[in-house]
């Protein structure tokens, strides 16, 4: 799907509105990293990913497939999935409510289009994405597998089991991204459990590593193209994506305090004043 840069930015503003409205409506959810990853999701789903919207299916044969490993940032994913027609836009108002397909953390359990694994318990998504990438190879399917992870999530040991596996088996049809926002629930990652030199770590594990500013739409679009161009060369690809947690809402920006907290009525109004409605509220 080709969409202009201006168009993508407009959509991103609307998605941010969706995020704060969804979280506010049920007084729970994770706005911080959802806001931080908005450019990434909009660029992926409205521009980059080669996906068949008219016939979503679990196997995703001959199309790109995406896995969200840090499932708590479901608000941004749900907004983008709805706005790309995976399910009705009005369903966003059911987020985290009883009998909804839009669970707090994403699940395949209720057949929500776009979701291929359940995630929430951290560190599991890279393994699943790698298995799906190997299935693509067995099927002679030339499309790619994408996964997104939080930086705090890298504290889970399974991530590094998977990192080792990917290089050993030369899984070069995957592009994984880590949202490096430097925050986790208890505070800055640097204080909670410092991650050290992430580029050196991933390179040592045998990955080709790129970096990008995840809050600059133009850069995200370009770097995703670059990442695609370096697949198929015998190594898995990692994008270390620097973002600002809470991006777009001034009082939420750059702090762990809005990791998993919903704004109250007054705070919502303040947030929406900074995020004008661009393509229509849900």
């Amino acid at each position, binding site marked *: 799907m080709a969409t202009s840069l201006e168009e993508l930015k407009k959509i991103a503003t609307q998605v941010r509105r969706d995020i704060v409205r969804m979280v506010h409506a049920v007084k729970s959810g994770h706005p911080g990293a959802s806001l931080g990853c908005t450019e990434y999701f909009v660029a992926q789903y409205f521009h980059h990913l080669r996906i068949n919207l008219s016939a979503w299916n*679990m*196997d*995703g*044969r001959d199309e790109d*497939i995406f896995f969200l490993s840090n499932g708590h940032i479901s608000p941004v994913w749900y907004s983008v999935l709805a706005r790309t027609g995976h399910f009705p836009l009005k369903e966003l108002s059911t987020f985290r409510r009883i009998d909804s397909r839009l669970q707090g953390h994403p*699940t*395949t*359990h209720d057949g929500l289009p776009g979701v*291929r*694994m*359940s*995630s*929430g*318990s951290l*560190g*599991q*998504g*890279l*393994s*699943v*994405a*790698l*298995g*799906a*990438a*190997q*299935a*693509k190879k*067995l*099927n002679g*399917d030339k499309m790619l597998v994408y996964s997104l992870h939080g930086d705090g999530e890298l504290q889970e*040991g*399974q991530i590094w*089991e*998977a990192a*080792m*596996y990917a290089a*050993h*088996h030369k899984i070069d049809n995957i592009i994984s991204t880590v949202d490096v926002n430097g925050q986790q629930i208890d505070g800055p990652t640097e204080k909670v459990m410092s991650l050290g030199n992430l580029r050196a770590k991933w390179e040592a594990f045998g990955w080709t590593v790129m970096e990008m500013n995840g809050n600059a739409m133009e850069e995200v679009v370009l770097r995703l193209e670059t990442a695609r161009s370096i697949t198929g060369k015998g190594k898995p690809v990692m994008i270390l994506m620097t973002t600002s947690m809470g991006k777009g809402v001034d009082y939420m920006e750059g702090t762990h305090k809005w990791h998993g907290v919903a704004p109250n009525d007054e705070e919502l109004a303040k947030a929406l004043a900074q995020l004008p409605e661009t393509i229509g509220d849900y």
Partner: protein
Amino acid sequence: MLDFNITDKKDTRSGFGEGLAELGRSNPKVVALCADLIGSLKMDAFKMEFPDRFFQVGIAEANMMGIAAGLTIGGYIPFTGTFANFSTGRVYDQIRQSIAYSGKNVKICASHAGLTLGEDGATHQILEDIGMMNMLPGMTVINPCDFNQTKAATIAIADYQGPVYLRFGRPKVPNFTSPEQSFDIGRAWQIHNGNHVTIIATGHLVWKSVEAAIQLEAEGISVDLLNIHTIKPLDVDAIVRSAQKTGAVVTAEEHQINGGLGSVVAQTLALHAPTPVRFVGVKDSFGESGTPDQLMKKYGLEASVIFSAVKEVLRQKVQA
């Protein structure tokens, strides 16, 4: 008939290995993963014949469960292989989220279950795996009794859509079921018909129950003997019918009594046909090093213990 012609003793894990290799030939969607235990799991044949469909994961069981879940996306049927302890307790959350809750068609194949793993000791002798897997919504739990049944079960689960836990063991045990058997998931195998007492057994304890039944019959006690190879979904009808007929039940398993076959049978009977029950199994303890025979004796997983349990439950039945 309890008159089995025992031609040989074979390990159930070799039944898995043979079944897997046959599946490789008959079903191109079957793939296999192993966490550095190819020889122990008898996966060599599959690996040799189908190297492109075999994935060595190394000593990283959590990753193996996730890779397996991912391989189902695109239509493959992954069989994971490692010891029962590393197939369940070590990776419970990976199975729970990435396989069971995600509804993935993964076959978790677990060898060296229970005490008969032997000399390696309690760290490796899991006795809680049936309970853990039973609790997971949507999980099918299978514990076949001998080589032929394990082979048949291995082949059968490939055609079943959904996550399966297949449990088998290390030592060579009597191979007494038919090599031509059809394996019906969820359907109890009635080994012998009797009227006085029901013995409900799974896995290695099925043969020991046969031995106990032979002794009991010789004393004039008529035994209804059920092989519950599928613990979930449980064949409730078969269990209730038998309990209503005999009025006394003994369960036998190489597993903790808490949460195992005994627990689910007791739950079933409490609901449908309250009946006196005795439980043969491990009684809330860890195992230890020793030969399989020594361990089974020390922890009370013997034909003689089943025999005594039958006598005990029959006394209660008479009093009632």
